[in-house]
């Protein structure tokens, strides 16, 4: 479970202070599929960095699984990221000189999982992300964008995290491939009950989630469930 209490973030460069987030508070329960939506400059990237434990808030508290992680050191944050967070980026960020399987096992390497178990779990994750088995040993830079993003999704949940954070996961993809990726998220959510936070500026993409948090100028302006939810594959 995720709980943010009065989170604020101020960036200082010289004399100028920029307030990226003003007292933001919300709760996300386990198993929710939430979209954080807002235009560029709204503070959604800052929020994502804080939710992903890449950055700490200037003030306020952030509880991840009932533990306050807002004041931890760099290495402690790295440890939290390793165990509780899975990232999916707009630019995929796969290792280009490594196979699909190796890319997916990477988080397990830092978690200190043994070789045999690593492979087992990576294969399971790839199956979960509906990634075709005959491409498992291809180099990641030989794949199409949609395929790469599905590798990234498998990598994001291979270590069984509390939260999967997806930052504009369809931003580099055409609509059709984007649908496939969004479908993958929906399947993971339904089948495995994963908690997913999707960050996007596109209402169309956000409508694939169950709940949308609208953010503008560093404030939450609207928080509610999606009325006409888009489901790629109806059950």
């Amino acid at each position: 479970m995720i709980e943010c209490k009065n989170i604020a973030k101020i960036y200082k460069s010289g004399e100028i202070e920029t307030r990226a987030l003003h007292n933001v508070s919300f709760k996300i329960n386990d198993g929710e599929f939430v979209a954080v939506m807002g235009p560029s400059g709204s503070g959604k990237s800052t929020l994502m960095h804080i939710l992903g434990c890449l950055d700490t808030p200037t003030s306020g508290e952030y509880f991840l699984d009932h533990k306050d992680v807002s004041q931890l050191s760099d290495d402690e944050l790295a440890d939290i990221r390793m165990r509780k967070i899975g990232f999916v980026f707009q630019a995929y960020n796969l290792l280009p000189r490594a196979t699909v399987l190796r890319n997916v096992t990477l988080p397990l390497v830092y978690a200190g999982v043994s070789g045999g178990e690593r492979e087992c779990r990576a294969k399971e994750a790839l199956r979960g992300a509906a990634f075709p088995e005959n491409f498992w040993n291809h180099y990641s830079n030989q794949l199409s964008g949609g395929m790469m993003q599905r590798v990234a999704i498998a990598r994001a949940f291979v270590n069984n995290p509390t939260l999967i954070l997806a930052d504009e996961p369809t931003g580099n993809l055409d609509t059709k491939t984007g649908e496939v990726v969004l479908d993958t998220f929906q399947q993971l959510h339904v089948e495995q009950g994963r908690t997913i936070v999707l960050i996007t500026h596109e209402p169309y993409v956000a409508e694939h989630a169950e709940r949308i948090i609208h953010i503008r100028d560093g404030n939450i302006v609207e928080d509610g469930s999606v009325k006409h939810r888009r489901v790629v594959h109806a059950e």
Partner: protein
Amino acid sequence: MLGYPISIVISDILILRMKILDILQETYIALSSNKIRSGLTILGIVIGIGSVIAMVSIGQGASGQIQSSIEGLGSNLLTVMPGVIQPGRGIVSAGRGSGQTLKNDDVEALRQIAGVAYISPELQRRFQIVSLVGNNTNSTVIGATPAYAEVRNASVADGSFIAESHIRSMGRVAVLGPTVAQDLFGDSNPIGVTIRINRTNFKIIGVLQSKGSSGFFNPDDTVIVPLSTMQKILAGDSFLSTIAISVESKERMPQVQEEAAFTLAEKHRVDPQSPDFSIVSQADILGTLTQVTDTFTIFLAAVASISLVVGGIGIMNMMLTTVTERTREIGLRKAIGAKKKDIGMQFLTEAVLLTFLGGILGVLLGWIISIAVSSFAGIATEVSIQAVLLAFGVSAAIGIIFGYYPARRAASLNPIEALRYE
């Protein structure tokens, strides 16, 4: 109760070992995906280590050769010379023959000292030597006794050496060093042939075995005649230029040297603190020459290590480029849970592996160069285990020193900025 902590320890060890394997695998992938760049960077270290190994091997070969040829001049040797060797100026400046203080009866006094095995009085001068066919050479003529062969480690390859009877009868016989024999007679057998030394006829009775040059003195380029003949007929005086003493064992050398100095000082009625002669042991000569070759070796190694430092800078350059190129990858690794030390370790391992590979190839290259130098240029070389180990140590140290800064830079990257890096 006991099983639980032990299993934790075991799993910790397994994780640690696995991490090392993982880091090596990452490093292998990273280095092999940029083969040309890695290869060129390694080449810098290969040349550095290779030249250090080759240069040190040449230096050590030279010192080894000098050592063995000095020992070949006679074992446990003490040399008594007239005049005083200036302290600090070494044996090179000793004015041989400058003083005329050593006489034949000094030899008898020295022979009484306990521990003396053989004693060889010698008088040497340079003379023009002419064969009757007309060839001539200028060479060192040594007046010697039969003990010369024992003390100086000399033996005849052909014919016989000076005998006691030649000394008594002031025989006009000569034993040629191989160089002189070659100069005068080429390949024909000189035994029994007559030569002229300083306008006196000598009959050749033997040819010495070759020993090789010792640097300052070539024992092959000598002619040996009976001491009495040398003193009375060729030189015309009764002094000695050298008394060579062979001591029974190495342990007795200092004692014999001390007693010989005392005996001679007493006999010459001079103050032992400022004698009119000097006694040099083989260890002194060896020490002086070793000093020279050591300086030579250090000089060569220092010149070669400049290229090693340049190679190290190459490593640093490549690692900095790599860190910049892989900024996004570093950002990703940090995002999925890599700690500072994981990232630092990975890049440090890359640098050390580069230099280590360079070290192995460099030792091989140096070895090949030293073999080539000794077989084509005829210079003795010697690749010692210490030099090889030192080269490995130095190459690993260079990896750590020059890889540390880039690795630290990679480790301290901010993950958010690294992920955004274009």
